């Protein structure tokens, strides 16, 4: 799970142009700098690429915190054999 959280923070940091250590697990996604809808979608695509997953469409704009994103990634990645 730590690996997933680190990966999610890394992608978010790169897409949003901020340092991953500025992003906490409990950070609200929409409260992060530059986190408009286009950036959130861009981050979702990048996270999908990184973890070889596909988010259910209905959750992409409904996940509220970084921790929620990591939880969903971990759930989706496990069956594909990626260690959570």
């Amino acid at each position, binding site marked *: 799970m730590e690996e997933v959280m680190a990966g999610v923070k890394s992608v978010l940091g790169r897409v949003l142009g901020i340092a991953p250590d500025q992003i906490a697990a409990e950070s609200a996604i929409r409260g992060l700098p530059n986190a408009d809808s*286009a950036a959130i979608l861009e981050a979702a695509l990048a996270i999908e690429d990184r973890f070889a997953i596909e988010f259910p469409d209905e959750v992409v704009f409904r996940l509220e915190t970084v921790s929620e994103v990591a939880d969903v990634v971990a759930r989706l990645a496990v069956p594909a054999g990626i260690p959570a």
Partner: protein
Amino acid sequence: MSAELAQYPAIFDRHEHLRWNLNRDIPWNAVRPELVRDEDRFAIRTAALSEFTTLAASHNFLREFVDDVDFSCWVSVWFYEEVKHHYALRRWLERIGIALRGDEIAPRGRPYPVGADPAATCTMNVISELRAARWYSDLSHLTHEPVLAAILRNLAADEARHAVAFASFGKRYLERDRSAHLRPVLEMAYFWLADTTHFKHPADFFYPDAAVEYRIDKVPTALAALERANHKIFEYLTEMTDIPLHGCRDLKRALRPLVPAPEAQA
């Protein structure tokens, strides 16, 4: 600024033949309040308030499309028709004894952020018009009150025509500069279409604090209309973009090559 009127005259002429008259074509004296159901009252009150957001949308359109005379001419007619929708629904509500309060209406006229890409703005409106058309059409079949049914049939036809026009203008932007507009169009479409558990509509989305008890996503018939509208929405998006789009997965697939990997940006 280009003064070229490439699409507006044809759209105007086409719509002029189909336009209905609020006084002449609606049999106002035939309203039968005893046939009105609670769900009609709730849905139409919500719809009337939602239609009032036209005012702020029009301000935005004229700002965002200030250099596009063709679109601005068309949107002035759109404005007239949408304000007529608000008035028609409001007049029907008055006939059954419901007066909208000023404090319900006024917040829906507040400005909201102007769009960033005109083709994407057209896309948002294609989606919202087709959803509204489906919802109004469904309601026209469900209500037992004949005058309301007649009003809703007219509104549904108007919204469907509006969607065609927005798609036509959106397509023109894509044809002129595909590399600039395709990504914003696909992102906008995904944003509005991804979540089918809510009736996501600009009239609610840009007014999160306005008239919270009367929101489209609280109207069961509106939610039911979502899936039913999708087929047509994706047909229009396919026509606009020249990309076969049948669902949100296709939107993401089309978007992926346009979004640079974060590593490439670093």
